[in-house]
């Protein structure tokens, strides 16, 4: 398992005061909060920072961590020395989430958290309580939203084993993604959450739909956008051109004098639904390169014969 440098993660010196650590945490938590942050690895960073703070904010855990020494490098292979935690006393209070932390964290502090949860677990066992709902994300391609799909999803969820320790269990579910889903929608899978206690029903599993970025389409709700390169003569004279759609190519009529950057709407060819989205084709006029004498000659001819000033409305 890899050693984690909690001070480096927090961007503070090893000698930092508790106040400095708290301020560093607040700043980083705002920066990497997955609901706010635009950073690609926000979720990972947020968890990492949360784990570092969990240790450094607590003088007991911090002292125990410091005693491992300052000579470790982040990522270095790490095994806790035997009896490393003798002489330290930990108070429980790992308010959930302990299983979200790294193996490194669990190897140092996991035992204490585990026994804490086990106690909580046992005291609840006498009650009838519905199992907790779980939430997870599922990534699909745009085409899956058009046609529907079946996805295998691997989920890792913390569970208490029969000795009362928190273990991470992996399970795989095959789920049907209905046609017509859009970004951010959820699918409810009844009874696939945590098991209930005392004979109460299990919780549900909610899958949030997220689209993989597409190489040619952009998605906005149920509307889909496509940049379509066209030649100057197609735009000027009008033409019928082949256009890809997630349901296969169609023929699109381009009107004479079409401007670049405008939107051509293909009604109902967005993501299907009771009220389906539209597909917007955005023509992008591309110039043929003037890489031959013949091409240059044609451009010169246009220059002489068209007398076109695209900047007239700028007053020059």
């Amino acid at each position, binding site marked *: 398992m890899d050693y984690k440098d909690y001070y480096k993660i927090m961007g503070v010196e090893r000698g930092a005061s508790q106040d400095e650590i708290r301020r560093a945490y607040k700043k980083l938590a705002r920066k990497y909060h997955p609901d706010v942050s635009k950073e690609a690895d926000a979720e990972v960073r947020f968890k990492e920072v949360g784990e570092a703070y969990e240790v450094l904010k607590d003088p007991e855990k911090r002292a125990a961590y410091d005693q491992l020494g300052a000579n470790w490098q982040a990522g270095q292979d790490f095994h806790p020395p035997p009896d490393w935690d003798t002489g330290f006393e930990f108070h429980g209070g790992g308010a959930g989430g302990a299983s979200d932390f790294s193996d490194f964290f669990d190897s140092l502090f996991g035992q204490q958290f585990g026994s804490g949860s086990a106690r909580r677990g046992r005291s609840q066992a006498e009650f009838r309580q519905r199992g907790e*709902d779980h*939430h997870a994300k599922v990534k699909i391609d745009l085409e899956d939203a058009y046609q529907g799909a079946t996805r295998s999803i691997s989920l890792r969820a913390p569970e208490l084993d029969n000795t009362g320790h928190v273990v991470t269990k992996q399970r795989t579910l*095959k*789920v*049907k993604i209905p046609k017509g889903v859009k970004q951010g*929608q959820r699918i*409810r899978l009844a009874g696939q959450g945590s098991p209930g206690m005392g004979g109460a029903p299990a919780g549900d599993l909610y899958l949030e739909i997220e689209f993989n970025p597409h190489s040619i389409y952009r998605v906005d709700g149920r509307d889909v956008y496509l940049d379509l390169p066209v030649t100057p003569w197609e735009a000027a004279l009008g033409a019928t051109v082949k256009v890809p759609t997630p349901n296969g190519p169609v023929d699109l009529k381009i009107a004479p004098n079409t401007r670049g950057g405008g939107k051509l709407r293909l009604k109902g060819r967005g993501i299907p639904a009771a009220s389906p989205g539209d597909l917007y084709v955005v023509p992008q006029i591309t110039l043929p390169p003037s890489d031959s004498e013949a091409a240059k000659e044609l451009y010169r001819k246009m220059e002489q014969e068209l007398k076109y000033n695209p900047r007239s409305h700028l007053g020059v």
Partner: protein
Amino acid sequence: MKQTILNGILIDEQTELSVDELSRMCSSSIEYIIELVEEGVLEPVTDHVPSQWRFPASSLQRARTASRLQHDLEINLAGVALALDLLDEIETLEARLHRGERSDNH
């Protein structure tokens, strides 16, 4: 081993949630949902007593984000409401950017 394919229920625009369902789905108390309504973070489609409230499905995402922000960043409800409004605005602007619109188109 052949695996069964699970069929879920899609929570779409037609789905409306009661205050009970919403509180359960975002693992928070009914009181918390009422607080979010009073702060204007959530808007029930029917404005009667809380037991008759119906929420649009989009409230689920909003309530979950609100409770995460409040818990993780230790901000109060007014701060959460402000953050959510700003996040909405960013999303609207990004969607326009995404569609290639210019800001003077409107």
